């Protein structure tokens, strides 16, 4: 395990027409860590994710993935550097099959080029076979392999969440960003999900950054927590420290829905 953080941000910030949606955001995540990012609604958590995945370009500060500065790269280049995410409002490829959703995320690892694709060369078949097996294995982790040929939008809600995680895993990332993975789930589904998250971390040895707006959930799984409100970091540390921090309590009591 190296000493370079998998993900590091330095004074990261973004302005939307004068409004500082995120300001002076600093975080360091080492390999294998599970870190929580919490804050009340509208605190800027998802904006942080959008900055960390190249959807928005930061107006201030820097992002480093494994020590490499990635500011200004496009989303697919962030993926190539080893970052993958899920979305708060699930964004699957709805009309495609479950397995194709996962195969899409394998695209960067596929070796055949246009010529091979046009003529269905030997390499094409080998690679498609490899990707097919890899996708099935990932689906199996989430007990979705029996539904590989289903149209993604026909899956129940909880399974759609899992499929989105499986898809993110297929990109071979070093750090996984989960945006409110438990949103809209019942307690049973949430418990299952937490098991899955722990399982992923153990099996793949990756780092995970988890957004939640429900504090109690994060307390159980995360090793460290960063709390933001109005785009600014108001606390960071161990779950026990954070939960007793007066600023955090104020932020939650003052603005929570």
């Amino acid at each position, binding site marked *: 395990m190296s000493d370079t953080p998998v993900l590091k941000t330095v004074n990261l910030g973004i302005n939307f027409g004068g409004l500082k949606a995120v300001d002076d955001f600093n975080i360091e995540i080492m390999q294998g860590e599970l870190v929580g990012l919490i804050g009340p609604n509208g605190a800027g958590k998802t904006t942080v994710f*959008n900055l960390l995945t190249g*959807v928005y370009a930061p107006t201030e500060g820097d992002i480093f993935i494994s020590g490499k500065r990635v500011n200004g790269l496009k989303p697919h280049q962030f993926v190539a550097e080893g970052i993958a995410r899920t979305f708060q409002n699930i964004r699957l490829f709805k009309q495609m099959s479950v397995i194709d959703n996962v195969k899409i995320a394998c695209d960067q690892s596929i070796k055949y080029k246009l010529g091979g694709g046009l003529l269905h060369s030997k390499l094409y078949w080998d690679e498609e076979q490899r990707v097919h097996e890899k996708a099935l294995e990932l689906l199996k982790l989430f007990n979705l392999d029996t539904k590989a040929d289903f149209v993604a939008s026909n899956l129940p809600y909880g399974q759609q969440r899992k499929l989105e995680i499986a898809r993110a895993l297929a990109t071979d990332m070093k750090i996984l960003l989960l945006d409110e993975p438990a949103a809209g789930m019942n307690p049973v589904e949430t418990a299952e999900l937490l098991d899955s998250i722990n399982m992923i971390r153990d099996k793949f040895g990756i780092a995970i950054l988890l957004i939640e707006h429900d504090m109690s959930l994060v307390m159980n799984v995360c090793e460290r927590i960063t709390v933001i409100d109005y785009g600014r970091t108001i606390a960071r540390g161990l779950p026990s420290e954070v939960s007793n921090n007066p600023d955090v309590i104020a932020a939650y009591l003052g603005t929570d829905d």
Partner: protein
Amino acid sequence: MAVFVQQLLNGLKIGSVYALVALGYTMVYGIIKLINFAHGDFIMVGAYTLVFTIPLMVASGMPAWTAVIFAVVACVAVGVGVEKVAYKPVREKGNRMSALITAVAMSLFLENLAQVLFGASPKTVSNIFKISNITVGGVTLNGNTIITIIIGVVVMLVLQAFVQNTKMGRAMRAVSEDREASILAGIKVNQTITLTFAIGSGLAAIASLMYCAAYPQAMPTMGSMLGLKAFVAAVLGGIGIVPGAMIGGLVIGLVESLSKAYLTTLTGGVLTSAFSDAIVFGILIVVLLIKPAGILGKDVGEKV
């Protein structure tokens, strides 16, 4: 100089026609997010109505331009009909692509229906305005041109006042801002959409009067290129924005008229007036690439 003023006025004339048509595009787009490809063909409907009703009005001792009443009625009927029969059912299924295809199909339908009914060859529209030319400071101004520009400006001002100051105008703005919220606020959305189509089509009828005063011919396909340019005007000004359509229309009219007159000289004979259409579309592409929201529009990013 006299030639320049002449071209400027020509540009403003055709520009005010574009502006009126562009208003129809912009209002409909604003409210249901659909490019109504058939909108240009409403002008054709208006023009054919004029062909047949002007002789009637003249025979009954009325001025020729009063035939615009029939044109308005015909266009509103067609416009509202198209919305109810084709667009509404598709809209309710919620697929933007299907809606766009329906709009193209509707345009195709109107053009071919006109061709079957009236034949492909042009029909002449009788003289609409009998106004003599005016000479100001050595420049002779065509009476038709002046009256066209005046009508255009007046209609635009009335429309702007309607949209800003009346209850129905506010409802239209509210629906284009946020349809769901408008329903909650008690606005009758379907009724508002129908009204929008009616006003847009009515404007197309007035535009057809102005257009026929300048180019007294009706043809099945006359509306397609006119409509496309008006759409370019709407995009240029900022789609969904009423004053934007006006500005866009006038700009496109001026660009077209001036490029027809001066393109050959300006480019040393490399490009000719025949390229003015290409230039209009070139403008569209440039605008969409640089500022897709148009001159008056605000860029709104997609929420992720």
